[in-house]
């Protein structure tokens, strides 16, 4: 589904290139659950952002569902990304001005889904995550775990093929974290959603089917289960 070849990302500092990502090649198949690990500054988030097309690599080739992303124009890339990718953040990044319902609905609005259809889809999602009762609350009125549930629901609403999660449990206590990981695991197994997560926690990483360890912008090791 996704192939990175010799991807590098660097910043020019004086005459030197400061590598954040250094010549990484990586293939992810459909249905995989990949955990990316590594110490702070090893380039995990940058790699995730490149995969998610929020950031552009300095060098290298990037293919996504058989499209050469590095050659695509901004508009096309956005369209591709809208269709296939959902994001989950450590800090949830819900829009404070919007209710739970509206937060979940927003991606559909940007994909020009009709109003009646949107209603049905959001209702479905609320139901599935058992947060129907909270649909009219604003993010500030929810606990961290609940906010992350909304964040995931929002990421899933447009039926993405790939979910990118940047330390999804980083701001949660262990019980809440476990629930979120169970949820990911279920999505992966039952719905066949491809998931790539960045995590610090060995335990959470083990929910995945592959663990990639990064160090100083390179892949240090890769284990499959």
């Amino acid at each position, binding site marked *: 589904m996704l192939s990175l070849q010799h991807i590098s990302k660097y910043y020019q500092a004086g005459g030197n290139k400061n590598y954040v990502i250094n010549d990484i090649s990586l293939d992810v198949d459909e249905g995989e659950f990949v955990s990316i690990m590594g110490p702070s500054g090893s380039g995990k988030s940058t790699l995730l952002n490149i995969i998610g097309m929020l950031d552009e690599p300095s060098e290298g080739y990037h293919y996504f569902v058989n499209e050469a992303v590095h050659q695509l124009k901004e508009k096309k890339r956005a369209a591709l990304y809208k269709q296939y990718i959902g994001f989950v953040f450590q800090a949830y990044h819900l*829009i404070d*001005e919007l209710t739970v319902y509206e937060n979940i609905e927003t991606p559909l609005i*940007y994909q020009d889904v009709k109003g009646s259809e949107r209603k049905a889809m959001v209702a479905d999602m609320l139901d599935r995550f058992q947060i129907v009762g909270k649909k009219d609350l604003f993010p500030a009125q929810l606990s961290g775990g609940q906010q992350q549930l909304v964040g995931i629901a929002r990421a899933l609403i447009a039926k993405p093929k790939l979910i990118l999660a940047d330390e999804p449990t980083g701001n949660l206590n262990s019980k809440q974290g476990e629930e979120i990981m169970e949820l990911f695991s279920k999505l992966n197994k039952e719905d066949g959603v491809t998931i790539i997560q960045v995590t610090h926690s060995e335990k959470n990483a083990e929910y995945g089917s592959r663990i990639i360890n990064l160090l100083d912008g390179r892949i240090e090791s890769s284990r499959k289960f």
Partner: protein
Amino acid sequence: MIKSYIKIAWRNLRRNKAYAFINITGLSLGIASSILIFILIDYHLSFDDFHKNSDRIYRVVTEWHDETIDRSAAVPQPLGKALRNDFTFGEKVARSVSFHNPLITLPNEKEIKKFAEKDGVAFTEPEFFDIFNFPLIKGNKKTVLVQLNEAIVTQKIAQKYWGTDDVIGKVIRLDNRISFTITGVLKDLPPNTDQKQQIYLSYKNIIEYASQQRENNWGGVNSESKCYLLLKPSVPVSVANANFKQMVNKYYTGRDQKVWMFKLQPLADIHFNTDFDAFVDKKYLWALFFIGVFLIVTACVNFINLATAQALNRAKEIGVRKVLGSMPRQLFWQFIAETTIITLVADALAYVIAWLVLPLINQLFQSQMQFNNELLPLFLVVMTVIVVFLSGSYPGVILARFQPIEALKSKLSQKNIGGFSLRRILVVTQFAISQVLIIGTIVIVSQIHYSKTSDLGFDKQAIITLPIPNDDNGKMKTLHNRLGQLNGVKDISLCYQPPAANSNSTTDIYFNNRPEAEHWGINIKAGDDHYLSTFDIKLVAGRNILPADTTSEFLVNETFVKKLGLKSPDEVIGKKLSVNGKTISGLIVGVVKDFYNYSFHSEISPICIMPNTNYYSNYALKLSGSNFKASLTNAEKLWNETYPDELYDYKFLDDQIAEFYEMDDVLMKLVEGFAAIAIIIGCLGLYGLVSFMALRKTKEIGVRKVLGADVGNILWLFGKEFSRLLIIAFVIAAPVAWWAMTNYLKDYQYKITIGPSIFILSILSTFIIAAVTVGYRSMLSARANPVKSLRSE
């Protein structure tokens, strides 16, 4: 999608109440001003545009080309007749001669009612109502005003006199001399016409009311003797004007043929051409237009400033939206939707403000502007679109351009929102606009103060004038004596007009047996031997005139001597002077010091003061300070005893002089008002901006304080920035204001100089206003506990 935009926009506004408040207040003040200015301009442009063929209607005006060019909106009385008889280019020609403040009585009513009609009556030829579109609601347009002693009145007058529209056959009496029977009722004249008379009388009666001599006199122009003409469609104006040359050759001889000139003035020009009798110069409408644009721009500047400053706070929302798949275009439109909501709310508020303020402006201008202007909705829509895009586009583009990753990590900085330089330019613009308006206000206020308080060369305090309502010289003398003996009357003079007056009589002069008349006219101030003492006018040479009923002695002023090209006042003493077509002659016995005989808008004229009972139309009374009220009541009593059939009316001389500056007062109040609004809008914006700056500098301030900076240092962080902007703005504003106000002062012959003090005052006041606005918010940040601000980082 749109619904979602609007919803979000609404919530954003509610969350950022201060932001919304500043924007809505600023915009609504700006829009309200522009609505009012729009109504005002539209009102003046609409004057007399409702007549059929209004592009073919002209007024005949007179010009005298001599040493200088003098102009009058009126013509010699026989001109209209000659035009009709000798030339064919006029499809219709109508004369209309009006008289102000006549006495109207209703003789056939049970008790006699007296009315003084301020707008006067007009002796009018029937064609007048073919040329102008003033429809009759009663009476036959074909026959009305054709016979002697007919009158038509407006509905308003009919209601005022008899309380009904049904007034055909009723009788009015003019100045207790001539009766007229009503044969028609006019629909009320619309407010937007320069025709103010409400009573029209048969023209044929003018010979009886004025004189046969006047009806045939080509040698003089009475300022109320107008002639209107509907030009035949095929005739160009230039041909008509050429025909007037033949007319001059036919009716004038000698040098007069070169001096006199008649011209057609288009109807649309009448309201604006101040060379004649226009109410308002178009340049003032333009000035208002630009003030309106200025105010809107300042309000938009506020908006842009605050919105871009705020953009950082919205970075997260924008980042998330981008990650969720929003296109830049969509974010742009979302922001435009927000701007539209703010603008619409401001529109609604502005509409209410304008509606509330319009009556005040009508009062100020004594006009009747309507709020239900048909173009107003269109104006509002256009205005809204302009405001929305002017103020919404730039912040919209900035927001839409955010990089999502940076936005989410709160890594956005100044450079992402257009830097501080753009906002600096905008603030400078605002400061500059406020300063131009402040300088304008100061100049106008100083000039009016100067005009009103300067020594005019005569005394205007505690002097009242009472009218001499008819030609009965016996009564005049009796009342003169009785008034003079009243307690509290220090001095009394019989005169034509006070030293400075709106009514003037100017004639030709012959000096010292020179064969030709001088190439300039002289202003005749008829007055008796007490004229000088009553008005405290100083003699510089010779002696005062002796008491007399007819003219054998003259006093002249210094300007007269200068105009003759003589050096010393003594050179004219004892010389012969003839005025009014050589009908009045006498010897010059004294020269008085120059006094201002018009407003400061005009130059001092050559003047002669002469005793002549035929000219007297006022009693001027100098009252003593004590017992003012008693003197007034006694004077009224005596007057009413002498003239039981007339309407009593008195005026204070200083009020009459203040009337010269009525238009200037109006202008001053308007500019003051708009300057105040510009300052308020500017302050709002400044406050918003400094709040944003404070927020952005929280960490910097914390660090500085930890490093030992005191409150003063921190305040200077803000002060430095704004002082610099203010000075740049001043450098831009000063020449612009100087240019504009020099132009304004060109309307004055006697004026202040725009000195450095005016500029210093302006920059000081702006500085104080800015300091107060910026100071409070800066103080708050300067005194904040640094531990708090640093911990959150």
